[in-house]
């Protein structure tokens, strides 16, 4: 395990983070503003702030090619920020939702983005040339509760979504004039808007925290609040899936997951560290933590003086200060994202959490 890059940005939770394609800019959602950090040497320094939301920002995503930033917030709005000579220029998106927006992601084509919300809809947003405005279409049926997460299929039409009603669903978000007609896949052949290509529930029907399609798009994984990761392999349109594999772990629930290859998933969450899962259609299992247990640096205890030791025992009733977790993140990890991909898959990923840290990991 190569050393990881740790950036402790501030002492408040990071709801979401996103790196630009050149990895020189880092956007983090901090309360109701989005901080933009620029890389300077080994560190990131604060460069700009995107102000506009008046409630907690819940999602931020930088489009890798166009560089546009989309943000969404509990104030029920989403903005698309574009660079202009006088700084970042926001454009309001017509989401038409009456509850908080919870999650936002650009589609791989960057022509659309999907916003999950507490209003039991997913707003699929696209740019309308004639009105010079971002408008949205709602994916509504059969969502019965808050959408907590969305994940795009590589073809930019299929969208995986996880909800607090315990279902992970695959929708078609095909929009005429914006999308090219997608190749038929195991998920479906004809895909008009709001086609439900799959609806999956694991045994416990717990909240879904994270969903992701595999790099090929032929499998969907979702992490739920019952500490499980479920991987679905579809067989053919309108047919029951080939395999639905649910892995119940001994750990605390995962909040976010990514595929680092066709047979490997990285998931992280309330245990404050990332885990690797390996498997295929025949079965999946947890292959251990990404952090090696005996990581140097954190473990090195300073030689305590006897006076200090007794003072500690007197003040706190214990000789050692055990308020530090053994993991790099000192609190729940809320988002993990692919940072760098090489030929075979993800080679580096980044994580951000409630402790205000953004960490880049090498696999």
């Amino acid at each position, binding site marked *: 395990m190569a050393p990881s890059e740790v950036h402790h940005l501030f002492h408040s939770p990071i709801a979401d983070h996103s790196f630009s394609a050149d990895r020189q800019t880092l956007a983090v959602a901090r309360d109701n503003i989005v901080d933009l950090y620029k890389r300077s040497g080994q560190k990131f320094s604060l460069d700009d702030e995107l102000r506009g939301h008046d409630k907690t920002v819940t999602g931020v995503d930088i489009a890798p090619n166009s560089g546009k930033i989309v943000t969404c917030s509990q104030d029920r709005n989403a903005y698309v920020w574009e660079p202009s000579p006088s700084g970042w220029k926001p454009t309001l998106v017509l989401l038409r939702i009456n509850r908080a927006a919870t999650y936002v992601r650009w589609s791989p084509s960057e022509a659309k983005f999907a916003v999950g919300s507490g209003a039991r809809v997913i707003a699929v947003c696209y740019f309308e040339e004639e009105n010079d405005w971002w408008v949205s279409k709602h994916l509504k049926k059969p969502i019965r509760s808050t959408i907590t997460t969305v994940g795009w299929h590589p073809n930019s039409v299929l969208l995986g979504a996880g909800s607090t009603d315990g279902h992970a669903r695959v929708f078609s978000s095909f929009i005429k004039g914006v999308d090219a007609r997608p190749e038929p896949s195991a998920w479906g052949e004809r895909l008009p808007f709001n086609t439900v290509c799959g609806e999956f529930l694991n045994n416990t029907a717990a909240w879904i925290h994270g969903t992701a399609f595999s790099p090929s798009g032929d499998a969907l994984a979702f992490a739920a609040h019952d500490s499980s990761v479920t991987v679905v392999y579809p067989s053919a349109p309108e047919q029951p899936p080939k395999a639905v594999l649910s892995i119940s772990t*001994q750990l605390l629930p995962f909040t976010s997951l990514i595929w680092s290859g066709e047979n490997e998933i990285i998931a992280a969450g309330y245990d404050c560290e990332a885990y690797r899962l390996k498997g295929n259609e025949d079965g999946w299992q947890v292959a251990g933590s990404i952090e090696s247990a005996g990581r140097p640096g954190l473990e090195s205890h300073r030689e305590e003086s006897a006076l200090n030791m007794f003072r500690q025992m007197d003040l706190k009733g214990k000789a050692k200060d055990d308020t530090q977790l053994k993991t790099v993140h000192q609190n729940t990890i809320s988002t993990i994202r692919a940072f760098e991909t090489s030929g075979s898959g993800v080679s580096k990923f980044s994580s951000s959490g409630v402790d205000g840290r953004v960490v880049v990991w090498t696999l």
Partner: protein
Amino acid sequence: MSLQNWRTINVDALDPDSPANFDLSTLTPAVNPVSTSDVQSLQNQIRQLLRGGDSEGALRGALENVPYGADDRGKEIHLATVIEILQSIRQSEMSPILSRIYQSEGGTEVLDALMKYIYKGMAQSTHAQSAKQVQPQSTGFSQIHSRGGGEGGGQAMSVLLSWHEKLVEIAGPGSIVRVMSDRRTV
């Protein structure tokens, strides 16, 4: 008409799409209804295993056939069955039995069910106790000296606590999270 207080109107009740007007049971995993008599006959079978000295088989049998679809009465009978098995197993045997179950096919599911019964058992024994003991004194303080205070309940609790400890060692905090998040209750 103008006296209508708009702020107190429950808007969700007027919205046909609102979750308030929606049968939430359609979202939960389907469970097959189980009749109380079935639970009772299962109890007898398990008692037989227990008399034969096969406490591990009895535990497995009880936890693999959890009557999620039974009514309150049926669930109570099954809880009593599970508690009976748990009390009949000696402390030194707990960990070996649990690790054997964990390593077998479908073991996590079985241990999750066990964790549910442990918590349900704890809830029940404290409930029975406090019902007896919450007698407000003349001082105005209610004296709940539980924590092993009640004779029968305290003993059952200590058995459940040692099972809980052993189970968390093997199935991890994940099993506790699953008790909280699982919509199928025992």
